[in-house]
């Protein structure tokens, strides 16, 4: 009798050669690729930030030319938002959502692979603008008319717009995949009110993407039509309006902030109960708060435009909604605090990062609430006060949770422990460095320093805060490096982690570290919100059939359940590794490159090749479609 594990291994193994590398559809490998690639972009954008800070260390420096400065701050923003924050959080989601819900893969594994390849291609596409010497220089917000063909005739803005359209394909594919996976592939018994909060965070993230991203894609398509073909959507002389760009951009752009923060808050919710040693207090409120943020975030975009000269009554409504969106964040914070206070803290590195997150996110949230007050916003928007605010929200609210995630889940992903002492050194360097960098920016902003300025004169009181920010940036950067060193040290010679180093409550701790390709020997039956704490039979990832475990070892399959109560419905046969997602990505890259250079012949060839690759992907082949 061959064991389930051996049978599953035979069916799920993808091979280690080139075919496996190119064709993998394993959500864990793809998740790690998102993480590694995202962190590479983090380093690139971080170096860009370092150069910006060197230029601003003192008045009237000439470290960078004005043009270089403008390109670097634009690329810093675009890269951090689109190529670092979102993909890295998608990486955590990719890796852990199927594990946490007891599935064997994402619902659409090839679409998942496709999403990664497109992200990689779009990221390379955008950054190749540096090689072309025409990097985007109109900011990540890319306002018109500065970004139109008259004021920016180079390809810089085309690189920007096309890469965002391209990348949108990846993000949308990923979001739909998360939604279907979470709604349909949960282990039996994982009813809606037993879904881990991290997974709810991914739901809120995915919903936000699905509703917000089209606005950005539309804005970028209209922009390219205007730049390439002389349309007039944003051109006042032709009856268009540059403010249309702002509406479209921020209708996407504000939810974008939440789609970065929501999964990060989910990550925090995954860590706090483990290291407070008790179930989360206020689970229902946290979940409702996450979903409320998703809904309300679509009603606040105009608070980026309070200085545009819009009617007072419109600003009043948006102001009210902006105050309102603070509440669900507050709800989560107090639920976490209640959990921590009524539990017993375990001060692991991950928990230190969460504690740091709490402080920074509360400060960022408080200054965020200040921006809901229209007159204060009008005074401080586009000053360094805003730069301070959103770095507290995005770095404090997302990067610190990501680093917490690296320390919390690193052992699961690597199979080895990270060094806790190095981790705490990294945390303190990052925490102190971050505050030293960004707290003085509040001051600089209130002292009247506008953002996006490549230099400033002496004598305006801006010297000290700017110098502190530059010094702090260096400390912050060193802190980040310590974690990278820690990670790669652990990867090569860390102590073995075991299945469940922290005594975690969710399902990913049931299986081995790193998990096998099929995740669990048996798809488990869930009877608790904290299954690992209250269902001891889950340990080892092989709940016995008597306890409700289903091996599904006869094919390449996972289980589909109902949306609400997670009752088993069908065995879903999963596709095998395939190179076609990569081929389609390459064909699309050709098409986008053709459009970039207005080489329409190349674009058409790329488009035809994309259709062909799609057909190749979907072509019926008896051996892969096991149904």
């Amino acid at each position, binding site marked *: 009798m061959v064991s389930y594990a051996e049978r599953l291994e035979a069916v799920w193994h993808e091979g280690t050669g080139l075919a496996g590398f190119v064709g993998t559809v394993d959500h864990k490998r793809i998740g790690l690729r998102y993480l590694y690639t995202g962190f590479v972009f983090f380093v690139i954008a971080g170096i860009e930030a370092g150069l910006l800070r060197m230029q601003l260390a003192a008045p009237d420096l000439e470290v960078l030319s004005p043009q270089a400065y403008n390109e670097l701050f634009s690329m810093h923003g675009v890269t951090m938002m689109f190529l670092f924050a979102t993909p890295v959080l998608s990486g955590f989601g990719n890796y852990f959502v199927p594990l946490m819900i007891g599935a064997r893969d994402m619902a659409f594994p090839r679409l998942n692979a496709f999403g990664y390849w497109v992200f990689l291609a779009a990221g390379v596409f955008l950054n190749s603008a540096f090689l072309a010497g025409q990097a985007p220089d109109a900011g990540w917000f890319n306002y018109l008319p500065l970004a139109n063909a008259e004021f920016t005739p180079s390809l810089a803005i085309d690189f920007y717009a096309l890469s965002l359209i391209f990348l949108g394909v990846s993000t949308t594919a990923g979001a739909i995949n998360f939604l279907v996976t979470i709604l349909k592939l949960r282990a039996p018994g994982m009813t809606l009110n037993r879904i881990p909060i991290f997974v709810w965070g991914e739901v809120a993230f995915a919903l936000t993407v699905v509703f917000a991203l089209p606005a950005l894609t539309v804005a970028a398509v209209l922009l390219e039509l205007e730049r390439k073909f002389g349309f007039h959507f944003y051109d006042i002389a032709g009856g268009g309006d540059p403010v249309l760009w702002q509406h479209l951009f921020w209708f996407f752009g504000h939810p974008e902030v939440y789609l970065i923060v929501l999964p990060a808050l989910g990550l925090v919710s995954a860590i706090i109960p483990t290291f407070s*040693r008790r179930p989360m207090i206020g689970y229902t*409120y946290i979940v409702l708060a996450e979903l409320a943020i998703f809904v309300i975030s679509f009603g606040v975009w105009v608070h980026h435009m309070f200085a545009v000269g819009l009617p007072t009554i419109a600003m009043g409504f948006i102001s009210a909604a902006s105050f309102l969106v603070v509440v669900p964040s507050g709800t989560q914070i107090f639920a976490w605090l209640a959990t921590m206070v009524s539990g017993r803290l375990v001060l692991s590195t991950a928990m230190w990062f969460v504690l740091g997150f709490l402080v920074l996110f509360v400060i960022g949230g408080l200054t965020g609430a200040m921006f*809901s007050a*229209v007159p204060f916003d009008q005074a401080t928007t586009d000053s360094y006060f805003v730069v301070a605010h959103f770095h507290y929200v995005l770095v404090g609210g997302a990067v610190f949770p990501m680093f917490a995630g690296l320390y919390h889940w690193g052992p699961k992903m690597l199979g080895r422990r990270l060094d806790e002492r190095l981790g705490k050194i990294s945390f303190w360097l990052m925490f102190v460095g971050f505050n030293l960098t960004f707290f003085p920016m509040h001051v600089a902003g209130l002292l009247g320093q*506008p953002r996006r300025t490549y*230099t400033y*004169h002496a004598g305006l009181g801006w010297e000290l805060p700017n110098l502190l920010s530059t010094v702090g940036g260096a400390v912050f950067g060193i802190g980040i490096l310590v974690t990278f060193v820690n990670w790669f040290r652990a990867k090569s010679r860390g102590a073995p982690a075991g299945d469940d180093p922290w005594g975690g409550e969710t399902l990913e701790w049931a299986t081995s570290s790193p998990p096998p390709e099929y995740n669990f020997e048996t798809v488990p039956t869930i009877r608790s919100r904290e299954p690992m704490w209250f269902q001891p039979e889950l340990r080892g990832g092989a709940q016995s059939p008597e306890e409700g475990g289903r091996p599904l070892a006869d094919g390449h399959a996972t289980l589909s359940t109902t949306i609400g109560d997670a009752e088993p419905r069908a065995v879903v046969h999963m596709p095998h590794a395939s190179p076609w997602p990569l081929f389609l990505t390459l064909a699309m890259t050709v098409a986008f490159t053709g459009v970039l250079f207005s080489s329409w012949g190349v674009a058409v060839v790329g488009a035809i090749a994309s259709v062909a690759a799609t057909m190749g992907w979907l072509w019926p082949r008896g051996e892969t479609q096991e149904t």
Partner: protein
Amino acid sequence: MLLAAAAVSCNGDAPSVLDPQGESAQRIDGLWWLMLWISLAVLAVVAGLMAVAFLRGRREGLEVDASSSRWGEPFVVVAGVIVPVVILTGVFVVSVRDLNAITREGDDAELTIEVVGHMWWWEARYPGGAVTANEIHIPTGQTVRFEVTTVDVIHSFWVPQLAPKIDMVPGRTNVVDVRTGTPGTYRGQCAEYCGLQHANMALFVVAEPPGEFERWLENETAPAASPADQAGLDAFLRSSCVGCHTVRGTDASGTLGPDLTHVASRETLGAGTIENTRENLADWIANPQTVKPGAVMPPTEISAEELDLIVEYLQGLT
């Protein structure tokens, strides 16, 4: 945090939001201090709860406390929903009151000044025909309405000590009202990224008592004085300057660059980039690209003698 805020409000040289000299800015300052105190209170509560969690101590081992918490969920509802809603509603009401006060103030504007944004300088047009650049004089004790727009990209008119900022958007004319009782020079700067030289787009609002202001306006409205030395004017009129610049009272009537009728009365060149000294003026005319790279003005290719004559002439335009 409070110390930092206090330092900000006392920093004498800075164009600080927290050193308000205009009525709108004073309202904003009041709003800031209200919100800061609330924020500090919230932060203290959060920090206090974190401290409690710390002080409860750790436990060896990984034992889980599965007991239900009687106070937990009610606490979340009260501290995490009800209290924030109450506080935020209060702040919202105050902020709307301030917003209305700020936007309604100008119903009785006593002076309207048109300000037009250019890459990368400010054009100010007064009733009566005075046109100047980057230095805008206003009378104290009167409500002054700024009607702002742009000829190219979006800029934002921001003088932190006087009023909230207002964007200058193509095809729109926006309005911001300023009223100050304190004479002084208030620095402002473009607050919407507008391309290469966004950093060097400063402006100065000079508030002076009405009598002084009237004299200034009268002078600015008048055409340029005839120069003592006709050679300077001739050199100027021969040069490429006149293609873009106006000097009222002469044949120079270009409109791309700033009006130079009273250029010598201004403190800076290139919208706050350099001081308006004789030497800087000569440098600027000879090659603005070394002073403010990317500025629309091209280098002027003339002999040293011609340059000298032109500088001499411009220095006389007070």
